[in-house]
Structure formats: structure tokens, C-alpha cells
């Protein structure tokens, strides 16, 4: 170790170095600051190359002067510890500070200072900044798509109602807590479904719903007399079979009209769009992909080889193809696979396609949770005499799902970020609406504003979700 401290401060001469160092550091930052905010170049008299690098050199020397192991001055020690640990770090810190100072003025002026907010025509947007007027004028389109302006309260009302109904879990007392799963898995989706169909769509619901309801009620009643060993397979097959028998062999009618709400006009799904469509699609895909994924995760770990192979095949197939080809399939190939008179709306087709696609990812995430559980849990449950379903519902799944909360949240985030892809089937959510607005002859040339706006919205949604999932993870973390 050499004892020569070349230009290094120590406790005795700290003050001199401190003044000199902070002065140089300050000068370097001031130079960049004046340069970027006021377009003043203090070092203009120097050669071009030197003038460009001077702040970096000054700042580097300044930081070198004030670097000391321990000074006793709180702020200085913090500075040294966090941004000034060695030469390399000092240069990087300086560069980042300079980049921030340099990029602030253009960003600020584009976003706020030179931007135009007032008015409702393109003429107000003369400045060099952003034209937020464009966003303001097109706001309804970005939020609701082609949904008629006069009817948009229906979407708002439905969303508010669904959010309120969804937040029931927060206020439920302990007495009702045990019904919450049932509520969220069965009742809430049903309510949401009815809201969408009667309220947002508003059309006469031609739906062979009623056969389904009859089949469901009948099969539940008969289900009580089926031995529990076969209950799963019974419920897998009998309701569907009943439905088919009722529809094609007993009643022959094409549809039963469930009726519509009086005073509401029908808005076809082609007119839905914007951010509200993003929400609708994410909501339904989440609801559908979760149980499907769970079934295939269990299937992949089943002891029956055929079920296992089928599950592996399903999961690997959907995980192996890009979503855009899945949507292509739902748009051009799927109608070929259905009976000719059987028409499925393109929104429903898109939701089915995305749900199946995401279900494969959910399945893999849940399988990870199942694998992470120690064998002892399975053995303990079995030794209590629990069957397959009891064991999974009361012992395995509650623990496994707790483990995979972050993974599920990530999958759901991916789902929300994938919704813009539905442009493939001709539905326009917010990004699609932006592309449409961009080509409007009255509003040419505002692509940047539109994309920035959509990016901010998506960023807020996704960031909030990822933070929420992090909180959930912390909340349900159980040490083992």
C-alpha cells in the first residue's frame, strides 16, 4: 500500500478539498444547466471538442476531490456512499445527471410549455409542442370506440356497478367470507355477463341461454344422486349432453328470445371499442382462463397417462404459437369448423381465443405452484382419507395458489398488454382507435401525441397492477 495520497483529502485538509471539489462539481452542473435551459454556452471560447467534454472533466475532478472514506459530515458521506464510490461510478453518475438535465427542457416544452390545450380544431395546434387538443377532441372515441355518444352512460354505469359489486370482498364480514369464492367464481361473472349483454349491448338477446339454464338446473338436481367418485365426470358431460338433446332433439327451435331492456338501443359489438373494450376483454379472459388453466395444470400432474398427454399437448400447443396466429385462426379458420347456421360474434371469438391462449400460461404457472408443495402435504391429506378432489380443493390448491400469486399477476398483465392485438379480428380498442384517428384527414400528423397518451394510460394500469400484485404477495407470504 502506498502512503502517497495524490491530491486525496484526509481529515486534516478536508475543508480545502471540500470547497474546491464542490465548487468544480457545481460549475460543471451549472454549465450543463445553463446550456440546456437557457442555451448559454459558458465555455464557448474553448475548442469545440474541449467545450463539449469540459463539464464531465470538471465534475470528475470535483468528485475525485471530495471522495473520502469517512468525513463525519452526514450529507457528504451519503453522497460519497451513493454516487461517488469510485472513479467509474463517478463518471456514470455525472453522465446520468447530465442526461437528465439535458433531456428535461425538450420534454417539458413538448409536454407542457409549448403544447396547446384549448380549442377544438386543428388550427390551435401551431406551436412546436404537443397538441393535446387532438386528444381532447377524440377522447370519447379513445375511451368508447364507435359507441354512440348518447349511449355511453350505459358503459359508465355498467363499469361503476361492476367495480362496486367487485369490491364486495373488502366489506364482507367474517360470516360471509366463506361464500366469497362462490360469489367471485360463479355469481359475479354471471352478473357481469348479464350487464354486458342486456346493458352495453342492449340488443334483443337471441341466445340459446334458456336451454343452457334448463340443462344446468336439471343436471344439478340429478347430480345429487350421483356417487361422489364420478361427480366430476358427470358434471363434465351430462350438462352438455342435456343441452344438445334439448336443443337439437326436443325443441328444434333455433333461438329463444330472452328479451331486451325497454328503451335501450342495440349497439353491435363492431361499434364497441376504445379503452372500455380493453377492460371488457381482459375481464372475461381472466374469468375464463383461470379455471381452464387450473384444470389443465391438474391434468398435467394427473396419474392417468392419457389425460396427462392430452394436457401436455394442449399446454405446449398454445404456448408454442404467437397470439396473433391464434387470433388469425379465430378469424379465418374457426368459422369453418362450426355448423353453417351457427354464428359466433367476433368479440366472443376473440375472447375465446385469448382465454385458451392465456389458460396455457396460467396452467404452467399453477403447475409451478403445485410442484413447489412438499410431498408431505399430499401424503398428509391422503392419510386423512381425503379423495382426489377433496385433497386438492381443501389442502393443495389453497397453498399452491398462494405461492403463484405473482406468476398469475404477471400472466394477467401480459393479457392486458396483449389486448391491442385484437385489431387482427377487426376490433379496435384504444391503440386501434389511435391508428384510425391518425389517418383522419382533418387530424393528420398527430401520431406522437396519440401514442404517448395511450402509453401513459397503459403504463398506469400495468404499473398499478404490478404494485398491487407485489402487495398481495407480501400479504399472503407464509414462511415455511
Amino acid at each position, binding site marked *: 500500500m502506498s502512503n502517497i495520497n495524490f491530491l486525496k483529502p484526509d481529515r486534516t485538509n478536508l475543508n480545502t478539498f471540500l470547497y474546491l471539489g464542490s465548487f468544480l462539481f457545481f460549475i460543471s452542473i451549472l454549465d450543463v444547466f445553463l446550456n440546456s435551459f437557457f442555451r448559454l454556452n459558458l465555455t464557448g471560447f474553448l475548442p469545440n471538442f474541449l467545450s463539449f467534454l469540459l463539464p464531465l472533466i470538471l465534475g470528475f475532478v470535483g468528485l475525485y476531490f471530495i471522495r473520502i472514506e469517512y468525513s463525519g459530515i452526514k450529507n457528504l458521506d451519503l453522497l460519497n456512499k451513493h454516487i461517488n464510490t469510485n472513479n467509474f461510478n463517478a463518471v456514470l453518475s455525472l453522465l446520468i445527471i447530465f442526461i437528465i438535465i439535458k433531456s428535461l427542457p425538450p420534454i417539458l416544452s413538448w409536454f407542457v410549455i409549448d403544447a396547446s390545450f384549448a380549442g377544438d380544431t386543428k388550427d390551435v395546434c401551431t406551436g412546436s409542442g404537443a397538441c393535446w387538443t387532438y386528444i381532447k377532441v377524440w377522447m370519447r372515441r379513445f375511451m368508447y370506440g364507435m359507441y354512440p355518444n348518447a349511449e355511453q352512460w350505459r358503459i359508465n354505469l355498467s363499469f361503476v356497478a361492476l367495480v362496486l359489486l367487485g369490491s364486495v370482498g373488502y366489506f364482507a364480514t367474517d360470516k360471509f367470507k366463506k361464500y366469497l369464492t362462490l360469489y367471485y367464481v360463479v355469481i359475479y361473472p354471471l352478473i357481469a355477463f348479464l350487464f354486458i349483454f342486456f346493458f352495453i349491448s342492449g340488443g334483443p338477446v337471441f341466445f340459446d341461454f334458456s336451454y343452457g339454464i334448463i340443462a344446468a338446473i336439471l343436471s344439478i338436481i340429478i347430480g345429487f344422486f350421483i356417487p361422489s367418485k*364420478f361427480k366430476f365426470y358427470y358434471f363434465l358431460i351430462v350438462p352438455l349432453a342435456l343441452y344438445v338433446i334439448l336443443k337439437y332433439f326436443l325443441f328444434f327451435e333455433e333461438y329463444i328470445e330472452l328479451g331486451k331492456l325497454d328503451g335501450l338501443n342495440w349497439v353491435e359489438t363492431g361499434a364497441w371499442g376504445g379503452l372500455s373494450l380493453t377492460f371488457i376483454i381482459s375481464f372475461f379472459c381472466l374469468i375464463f382462463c383461470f379455471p381452464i388453466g387450473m384444470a389443465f395444470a391438474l391434468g398435467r400432474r394427473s396419474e*392417468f397417462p392419457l389425460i396427462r398427454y392430452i394436457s401436455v399437448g394442449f399446454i405446449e400447443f398454445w404456448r*408454442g404459437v404467437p397470439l396473433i396466429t391464434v387470433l*388469425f385462426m379465430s378469424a379465418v379458420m374457426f368459422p369453418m369448423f362450426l355448423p353453417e347456421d351457427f354464428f359466433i360474434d367476433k368479440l366472443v371469438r376473440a375472447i375465446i381465443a385469448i382465454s385458451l391462449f392465456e389458460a396455457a400460461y396460467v396452467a404452467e404457472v399453477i403447475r409451478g405452484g403445485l410442484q413447489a408443495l412438499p410431498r408431505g402435504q399430499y401424503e398428509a391429506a391422503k392419510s386423512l382419507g381425503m379423495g382426489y378432489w377433496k385433497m386438492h380443493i381443501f389442502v393443495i390448491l389453497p397453498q399452491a395458489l398462494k405461492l403463484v400469486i405473482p406468476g398469475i399477476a404477471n400472466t394477467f398483465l401480459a393479457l392486458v398488454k396483449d389486448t391491442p392485438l385484437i385489431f387482427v379480428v377487426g376490433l379496435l380498442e384504444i391503440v386501434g382507435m*389511435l391508428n384510425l384517428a391518425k389517418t383522419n384527414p382533418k387530424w393528420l400528423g398527430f401520431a406522437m401525441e396519440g401514442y404517448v397518451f395511450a402509453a401513459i394510460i397503459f403504463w398506469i394500469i400495468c404499473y398499478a397492477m404490478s404494485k398491487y400484485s407485489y402487495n398481495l404477495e407480501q400479504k399472503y407470504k407464509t414462511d415455511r
Partner: protein
Amino acid sequence: MNFKLKDIVPQLITVLAVVLVFGFFTYNAQINMENRGIDFGYGFLSQESSFDVQFSLIEYDGSHSYFRAYLVGLLNTILVSVIGIIIATILGVIVGIARLSPNYLINKFAAFYVEFFRNIPLLLQIFFWYFAALRALPLPQDAEAIFGVFFLTIKGLYVPAFIWQNFNIFFYSIIAAIIAIIVIRAHAKKVQENQGKQIPVFLISIGLIFILPLLSFLIGGVRLSFEVPVLKQLATTSFIYEGGVSLPPELIALTLSLSLYTATFIAECVRAGIQGVGKGQKEAAASIGLTPNQVLKLVIMPQALRIIIPPTTNQYLNLTKNSSLAAAIAYPDLVLVFAGTALMQTGKAIEIVSITMFTYLTLSISISILMNWYNKKIAIQEK
């Protein structure tokens, strides 16, 4: 008997359900195709395609077959994926390490980057780069040269082309260098195990990989020259660059957004991997007298890579699959050329969509088989 029945019945029911569903679909498809007068078959692949593709790596025009068009699309997909994977890996590793930096500013900067880019849909980013950012670039005649040879214009990036003479010899010299390095590594390991001596393998390897190709220039007669793009006037207001290699803006926007987006995920994998190595490992390694470099090389990296590689491979797969978003900005990849244009022209929906899906499936399954094999190889052997 009862025991067997219990095993067989659920499987039978499941298989029956799957067969029924598929049978139903096939039956309907047959009827539908009969009604519309479409016949099923892959014969169209050898027919003349009669459409043109903007950007292709192999020779192609309308007189070639549909199969050739498929190859063009596939190669374009692979091109964009490979470039994207390389950039994303470099960026991801840098950002991942930066997120662990003790420097507050670097740390936060990296965190900001990750949180910013991973929370915006990829499609939106592609649109942003293609329709907003790259449209703000200058026209060819106004473009300023970067380092005198690159031209970044609204019509794409023009870079100099490499013109090689005796490229074979250069190529062989690189292969020779790689073989020499492998031999030296094996030798060094033997020497260390037998005598405890260490040979500076890393320095020798770097030397070899530079010196041998350099020798090929000096002795082997390898020549390298550049063809710089030159501005050419087509009409009074229309200019293009000639010579060199031109990268279309679609390709630039796609690689840029794909790699910026995927790099955030790779960065998180790298961070998790390095953090996943226990602190005790580092301290133990230091306490038996390893130098910091050896600690990193012999103790940290092997354990960190075990955590890093599986999720990173997954990200590569995602990038390859996400490259299909190219269709949205008309970059001629597999989806656009084959599932788009070719499908429109032939109307063979089932055949073309199934070929496209099967191609992606083959790509991803082969990568995931490789990954599983590697995973098994490096996993800790538990007793």
C-alpha cells in the same frame, strides 16, 4: 376388475370428449368446404405466387412459388429474432447488473428503464417507433452522415456493405482460433489439476482470436473493402441511396421495440439470478483465498447461470413469437407474407394457418426441448 375400471373410465371419457370435439370440427369443415367449393390440399405450395415482397434475404419475385414465399417470410422472422435476441441480451445483462449497482443513480435509472418499458404493450411501442419516432427522421437528401458512412433517413438505415476477397480463408482462420482455444483450455485444466499451475487462458484466447484472423489478412490474401452508400437523384424531389446495405424502417422499428421490451425481462432474470446466489457463497469463496475475479468466475457465475438461463431462454422464445407483430407495420415476416398475402390470394385458410402455427410450434418446441435438456444437466442433483 373394479380397480381397473376406476383407472380406465376417466381416461376413456376424456379421450372420447376430445375425439368428439375434433370429429365435430372436421365434419363441419368438410361440409363447409364442400359448400364453398374449396378443396383441401397442399398442392398450392408449388404454384406461382405472383406477388412481390418488399424485403427478402433470398432471391424472390412474383414468379417464384408459394413455398419460396414461405421461406422468405420464415427467414425474415428469423433475421428479426436473431438481431433482437443479440441486442436484448446485451442490453438486458447491462441493465440487470446496473440494477444491483451500489450507485443510487445508476440503480434508479435502470429500475426506471425496466418499469417504463415493460409496462407498455409491445404493439404500442412498435407503432410508436414506426409511425411516430422514425417518421420524424430526415428525408434522404437532408440526412447527415453518422461517422461519415451511415445514413439514417425516413426510408431506412443505410450502412456500408462489406466486400470480401478470399472470405473462406478468413472464416477458416476463425475456426482454427476457436479450436486452438478449446485445446488450450483443456490443456490448462490438466496442468492445473496435475501441477497446480495456472495458465492465463483468457488472455491467450483473446490474443488468438484477434491474431489468427489478422494473420489471414497479412499472409492469406484476405481483403476487405467497404461500399459506402451514395445519394442518387431519381427525380427532382425523389432521392435514394445506392450501394451499401439498406435496412428498411420496418425492420429498425421492430428490432428496436422488440429488444427494448425483451431486455427489461432479461434484466430482471439476470438480477434475480445474481441475487439468488447466497451471500454465504461469496464469503466462503473469499475465505478460502480466491481472488474477486475467481469468486465471480468459479463460484457466483455457475450458480447464477443456473437460475438465469431457463427464464432467459423463455424470453428468447417470447421474442421470437412476438416478432409476429411485424404484421401490424407491414414488415414481411412469416405471418404477413404467408398468413396474410398468400392466404388472401389462395383462400386456403386451414392449410396456411396450420402451416404457420406448425412452424412456430416447431421453433418453440425445439428450443424448449433444448432448454429442458440443459436444465436437467445443470440442476442440482438432489438425493
